[in-house]
């Protein structure tokens, strides 16, 4: 039986006719009681399960997913990984995620195909260059790698960009995070699932939460489509449905659900070897390893739980992409889709104990949850294991909305939220 992935095991299995591979994760039936329950089998939930077992030795854990793992936003994002945020609190949380991403393939024994190809956020005016300089300074002070790019630097990195004198959005320069890039999103989910399962976590798919078990004002488990499951601590990482589960638990969240669209083109030969964001067109583009151009844009402006986008926004995204890269005018688009994101007033995540004691939150990542998966998992695992905040998650508690200590990263993503 081959469990460990390596060149040697690949070779051995090749000789043996690929007969010895074991399933990447087990699919056990749920037990009636666990030490901890995690709701949501996306990247954040799976990472929580893994770090709970690895960092805290808590392995009697159930991860409950209503569909299949990685089938929500984890499989719908545009795979960008970066940590160039403005505020120190954000730099700490996204920096933690980014540093864990760098060694993730080795840690999980699963190739997440991290490609640190750099990420470029353009500046389209003199004023935008001033803001970019301020932003680069702040990011550098936070200890994150980031550089201010001149027009010449941009020309060097993306020579196919629209630099024509009559461009609607002329380029003045930009900000550059060399360690940013992309990772294979499905591999992140599958890698965490496999590693967590090997440490003893029960990953239970097709198991939808219908209610919470609340006794003496505490969450003591969940009622699911596969029966009641009890635990003293429950964590939820259900981006897109956070408000729906919160309503079942009897509280509200500062979350609005919106669709965020993306699309990919037919595969073409390598032509863009970085991630390019234009804040003025609200569009960003990268190229996948298969050669597809991956194109993302701003949110649909209509509150929605329908996992599909509306046409006007897609039209705007394509128009913006063509303004940036007229060379793509003949490209055929292959797929378009949308994920439902939790949009929070300050565009920062919510991590901490919920108003229902015993239930812990990891939500509100808005349009940027994928890049934060290792941090979201580490921090929710810390909460579930200790009942206390990690220093990095403390500023992101739900209590900031009453205290007014918001972490307003509305501009942090570089695109419109």
């Amino acid at each position, binding site marked *: 039986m081959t469990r460990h992935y390596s060149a040697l095991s690949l070779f051995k299995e090749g000789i043996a006719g690929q007969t010895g591979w074991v399933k990447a994760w087990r699919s056990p039936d749920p037990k009636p009681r666990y030490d901890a329950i995690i709701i949501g089998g996306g990247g954040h939930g799976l990472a929580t399960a893994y770090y709970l077992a690895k960092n805290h030795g808590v392995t009697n854990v159930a991860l409950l997913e209503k569909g299949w793992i990685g089938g929500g936003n984890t499989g719908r994002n545009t795979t960008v990984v970066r940590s160039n945020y403005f505020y120190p609190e954000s730099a700490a949380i996204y920096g933690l995620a980014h540093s864990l991403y760098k060694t993730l393939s080795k840690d999980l024994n699963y190739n997440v195909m991290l490609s640190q190809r750099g990420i470029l956020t353009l500046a389209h005016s003199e004023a935008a260059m001033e803001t970019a300089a301020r932003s680069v300074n702040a990011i550098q002070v936070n200890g994150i790698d980031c550089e201010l790019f001149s027009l010449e630097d941009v020309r060097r990195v993306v020579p196919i960009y629209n630099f024509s004198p009559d461009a609607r959005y002329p380029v003045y320069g930009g900000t550059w995070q060399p360690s940013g890039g992309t990772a294979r999103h499905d591999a992140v989910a599958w890698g965490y699932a496999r590693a967590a399962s090997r440490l003893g976590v029960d990953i239970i798919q097709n198991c939808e939460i219908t209610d919470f078990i609340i006794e003496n004002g505490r969450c003591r488990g969940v009622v699911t489509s596969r029966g009641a499951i009890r635990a003293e601590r429950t964590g939820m990482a259900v981006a897109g*449905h956070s*408000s729906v589960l919160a309503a079942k638990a009897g509280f509200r969240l500062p979350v609005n659900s919106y669709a965020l669209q993306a699309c990919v083109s037919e595969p073409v030969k390598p032509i863009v070897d970085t991630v390019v964001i234009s804040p003025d067109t609200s569009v960003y583009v990268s190229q996948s390893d298969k050669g597809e151009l991956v194109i993302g844009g701003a949110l649909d*402006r209509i*509150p*929605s739980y329908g996992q599909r986008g509306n*046409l*006007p926004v897609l039209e705007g995204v394509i128009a913006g992409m063509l303004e940036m890269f007229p060379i793509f005018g003949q490209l055929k688009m292959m797929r378009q889709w949308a994920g439902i994101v939790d949009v929070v007033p300050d565009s920062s995540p919510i991590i901490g104990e919920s108003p229902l004691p015993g239930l812990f939150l990891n939500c509100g990542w808005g349009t940027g949850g994928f890049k934060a998966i290792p941090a979201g998992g580490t921090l929710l695992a810390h909460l579930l294991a200790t009942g206390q905040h990690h220093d990095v998650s403390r500023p992101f508690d739900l209590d900031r909305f009453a205290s007014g200590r918001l972490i307003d990263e509305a501009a942090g993503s570089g695109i419109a939220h």
Partner: protein
Amino acid sequence: MQLFPCPFCGPREESEFQYGGEAGNLRPDRDVTAERWADYLHMRDNPKGPTREIWVHMTCGEFFAMSRDSVNHKVSGSSVLGDVEHGR
């Protein structure tokens, strides 16, 4: 392009409209706790399914209430703001 019904102008393209918030989120009286104020400012029902919302038709500038489904996006009606929305 979806059409939204402005109660003043009739059906118009969705891009002419801006979402204003959930209907019935009334501003509390003065001298409330920080929690109550935060609840009004930030906390939302964010319902999945039938929902009633405040929208503004930007071309005529009028605010109105619209009943809609947040999953299939079907609009079931719109109306001028009434006593309920004004907290009367």
